């Protein structure tokens, strides 16, 4: 590719650009090749050892990696002390749920459990030919170093990664692969290594999300997670507000509930880890990180943060405007300051810094997106106000100059990137759900391509941070629950963005590369002239289950492109809420389905005006006649809310399809917005989420 808006995140892994992937018609690496490189060729295949395998991290990663490496014949060795409580056996029900009994048995049978005394490795380990050690033992530096020495003495060529959340690679003497909770399913790994390694690339090829970060004390996730915990603790100290209530206000403000998370992870271990990270950060960076007295106490006692069940809270706490502003300062001030440090130290690609908070620490919007929305002046003012409340934090680790480049593409394109080769543009979305930030960034990306003179574009996931595209971020709908104008504003603005893909480019191709594309994301992609998808991707419109009425033209746009004979299938998709496989949606919802390689090649061929043999499906501009109102065989709604949701969606389909294309956008946006203010939506998933999150 000739030009990019900002660096592609895949490049940080040494995997090139997304554009190059399309141009070459294949991914840059394959799992099979990388398994050979890391574990040896088939026949000489070595094993993977996870030490501390019964711990929360060890057991989770034994499952996650075991499930992915078992098909390649890589044996898993789970190593721990003989008296360690069984953490691996507890994973079995989850495995059965994910892979079925046969799959679960296969994965478990591939795990060999071994015990050791901490000083000498079991003799039988040698027979397993260990090639890769993932160390997940307690956070004690000397113990970890001694552990590596035993392995290196026995297996000099072994590749080692530590899951540490606090110690830098330079202190440990090994690379870092720091995973995120919940360890069975969270795909993020913060990796620290001098150059992108086959290990990190293998993680990527196995469908995980390795994210390179710099080698500093405590990694990005821990600065954010421990940081927001500490911010909550400081507010608790200043206000007496109980932890459970601080949690609710933090969740309302940013998304995470750090104290609940500690209890869920296991307060005994999580309290210590949080303290350990903050303690080491404070030693290097000063008082902004100093653990509070109550954390000091609870790292020792392991006490939960929420009260026990028999003492569920009785007295509620509210914040008036003045105290709410103060609360924001106590929480955002340190978060912004800590982020300034990470920016100053260039701890990672900005899209990574931003995404880690969303994908691992429950941030509704990444911390950089929050800061960008506030603007540099407000960010600096917030930190300065925090320093007035907590003067000790002002001494060090504050880098306001880090916000000077907020107007740069690196800051402005956290979720959407664009690149082109002077002929074909590739726009990538790195967020799984569509929100106002994605919408704004997508518009900027399309503007940039237009300015660059690009008329042919591929829209796709980023093959890295977004492993699927799940639809609209329902948190964006909160203002619309009480205000139809707000809902109309969102639906019409996002629909106008989507239409640009149809209206402003000579050729636009949507490529579904992940495991699913649903709801608002599918509505967005269907505006492209062509939609191609990997053949087992799930495509669906689950809005009816929430319920909401699709707002980005999903109720008429696909009808205008599909043969009338296929309209019942679209109706089924919209009213049933169940997804279809991409291979079953060709011709009426998408244009092509195939293997990833085929899909990459097809998308590129279409976009680069090659011979592809696919007919461009025309968008009918007039009013459609004969759109059905029901689907034979669709199960009866099981509750009034389901009945009303279907009725509203059918009404929207009839009105929007019955309008001319020029009017349909407004018709659908209004229908969607009106339903959002109904009691059905307000008491449904979105309304319940809103109440739980925002009404505290």
């Amino acid at each position, binding site marked *: 590719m000739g030009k990019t808006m900002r660096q592609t995140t895949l490049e940080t892994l040494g995997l090139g650009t997304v554009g190059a992937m399309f141009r070459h018609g294949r991914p840059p690496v394959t799992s099979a090749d990388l398994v050979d490189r890391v574990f040896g060729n088939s026949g000489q295949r070595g094993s993977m050892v996870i030490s501390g395998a019964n711990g929360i991290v060890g057991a989770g990663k034994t499952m996650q990696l075991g499930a992915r490496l078992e098909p390649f014949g890589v044996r898993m060795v789970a190593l721990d002390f003989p008296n360690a409580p069984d953490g691996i056996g507890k994973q079995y029900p989850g495995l059965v749920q994910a892979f079925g009994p046969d799959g679960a048995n296969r994965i478990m049978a591939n795990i060999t459990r071994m015990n050791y005394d901490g000083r000498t490795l079991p003799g039988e380990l040698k027979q397993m030919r260990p090639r890769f050690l993932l160390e997940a033992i307690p956070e004690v530096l000397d113990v970890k170093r001694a552990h590596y020495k035993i392995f290196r003495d026995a297996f000099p060529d072994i590749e080692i990664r530590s899951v540490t959340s606090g110690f830098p690679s330079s202190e440990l003497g090994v690379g870092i692969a720091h995973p995120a909770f919940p360890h069975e399913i969270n795909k993020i790994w913060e990796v620290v290594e001098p150059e992108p390694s086959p290990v990190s690339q293998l993680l990527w090829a196995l469908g995980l999300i390795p994210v390179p970060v710099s080698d500093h004390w405590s990694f990005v996730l821990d600065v954010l997670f421990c940081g927001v915990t500490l911010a909550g603790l400081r507010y608790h*100290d200043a206000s*007496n507000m*109980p932890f459970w209530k601080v949690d609710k206000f933090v969740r309302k403000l940013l998304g995470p509930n750090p104290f609940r998370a500690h209890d869920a992870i296991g307060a005994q271990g999580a309290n210590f880890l949080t303290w350990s990270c903050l303690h080491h950060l404070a030693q290097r960076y000063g008082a902004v990180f100093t653990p509070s007295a109550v954390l000091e106490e609870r790292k020792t006692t392991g006490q939960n943060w929420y009260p026990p069940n028999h003492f*569920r*809270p*009785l*007295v*509620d706490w509210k914040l008036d405007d003045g105290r709410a502003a103060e609360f924001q300062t106590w929480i955002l001030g340190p978060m912004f300051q800590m982020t300034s440090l990470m920016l100053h130290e260039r701890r990672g690609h900005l899209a990574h810094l931003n995404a880690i908070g969303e994908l691992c620490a429950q941030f509704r919007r990444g911390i950089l997106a929050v800061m960008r929305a506030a603007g540099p002046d407000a960010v600096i003012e917030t930190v300065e106000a925090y320093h007035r409340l907590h003067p000790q934090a002002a001494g060090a680790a504050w880098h306001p100059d880090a916000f000077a480049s907020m107007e740069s593409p690196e800051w402005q394109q956290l979720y959407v990137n664009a690149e082109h080769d002077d002929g074909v543009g590739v726009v990538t979305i790195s967020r799984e759900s569509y929100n106002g930030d994605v919408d704004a960034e997508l518009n900027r990306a399309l503007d940039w391509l237009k300015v660059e003179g690009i008329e042919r574009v591929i829209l796709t996931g980023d093959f890295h941070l977004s492993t699927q595209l799940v639809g609209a971020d329902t948190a964006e709908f909160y203002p619309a629950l009480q205000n139809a104008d707000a809902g109309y504003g969102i639906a019409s603005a996002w629909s106008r963005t989507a239409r640009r893909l149809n209206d402003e480019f000579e050729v636009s191709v949507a490529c579904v590369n992940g495991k699913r594309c649903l709801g608002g994301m599918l509505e967005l992609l269907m505006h492209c002239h062509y939609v191609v998808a990997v053949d087992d991707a799930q495509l669906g419109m689950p809005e009816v289950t929430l319920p909401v009425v699709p707002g980005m033209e999903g109720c008429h746009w696909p009808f205008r492109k599909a043969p009338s004979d296929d309209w019942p299938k679209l109706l089924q998709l919209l009213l049933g809420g169940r997804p279809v496989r991409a291979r079953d949606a060709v011709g009426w919802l998408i244009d092509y389905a195939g293997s990833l390689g085929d899909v990459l090649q097809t998308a590129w061929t279409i976009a680069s005006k090659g011979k592809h043999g696919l007919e461009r499906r025309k968008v009918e501009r007039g009013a459609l006649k004969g759109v059905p109102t029901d689907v034979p065989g669709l199960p009866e709604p099981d509750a009034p809310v389901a009945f009303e949701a279907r009725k509203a969606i059918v009404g929207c389909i009839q009105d929007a399809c019955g309008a001319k294309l020029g009017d349909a956008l407004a018709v659908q946006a209004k229908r969607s917005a009106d339903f959002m203010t109904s009691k059905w939506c307000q008491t449904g998933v979105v309304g319940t989420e809103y109440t739980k999150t925002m009404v505290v």
Partner: protein
Amino acid sequence: MSKANEIFPRARIPYGTWGSSYFPAWQTSALAEVNIGQFAGEAMNHILGLRRVPKSELDYLVIGSTIPWHWKFWNAPLVASCLGERVPGYHMEQACATGLQAALLAGNEVQSGYDVVGVLTFDRTSDSPVGVFPERRAHERTRALADVWDNFGFDPATGNAMITTAGLAARKYKIERQEVDELAYVRHKQYFDAKRSGFLDRVLVPLEVLNVQGRPLGRIDDDLGVRELTLSGLRAMNELDTCVTGGTQTHAADGMACLLVATKEKARELSPRPEIDIQFVAKIEVRTNPSLMPEAPAFAVQKLLEKTGLTMADIAVVKNHNPFAVNDAIFGKLLDYDWSCMNKTGSSLVWGHPQGPTLTRIMIEALEEAVDLGGGYVLLFGCAAGDVGIAALLKVS
């Protein structure tokens, strides 16, 4: 004047770090549904938060309550845990004198070496527990006793009910029904005037109570059950005993109240108005003859004045726990004092009697009133089960 020394020279009450819940009448609010010990701990934490006092300042906690509550065995340490601060402490009780005695004990704890001692008093008269007591000497063998009502109705030492003591005392001092009705009318007016003026907003803190699902159960934001009475209405009420009617006696209520006692230095540090100094001057208790409880507080005050060398003319604020209007009439008579000059912001006769916290709220109101007056001596007193009278003197400067 010369004898009015401090009893706890090291101890001060930091102005403005206190607070009380409203006292809804029994069975009228969400407080009827809660474990009052837990509620009180959480409420004190909330009040300290509103007053910008970090709970971590607490070294020790004295709690006071009179009605058993679930897990009472764990007493102050448990309530402190509900408050969110694992400090030691103990539970005390002295019937209706609990709210004043707890503060005095806290003064003593500061005098003994603690820097900041919390005082937290509370009770829930609604649905008070019922105990089954094996009793070998009674013909029933076991007796089920409803804690509040059976105790009000029967002093085991004398065999008389509380209300009987009021009637007996009224007859002893020849108190007229007319005076008692007028007194009760004035007390109601004093309360409602203070309420309308906003004075009570400085003392009482509205509190939201949650149910087990974390949803609102009710807001405790009024002394529910209190209604403005007319003089003619009071006069028309049935007399239950001499000079005692529904309008001239208090009612059972639920609630909590809290304050801090600290060293002089800490009090300055914690108070939003460090220039205000509140000292403990003196304290007296007396026990009068059987079933004459309403006269006991007056005797206590007489003794206190004698001890301190003060006269009623030296006192800036006079406030008492007056479960019966008769108490105040007797006090006026024995001390030759115009009862309309006391209880200027209301009293427990009007806003109810949750027992443990009653005199704590009275103390807080009195101190606020004294600050409004620019300082002076504050006289607090009241009666307690067992024909006891308690009186204490504080000084606000």
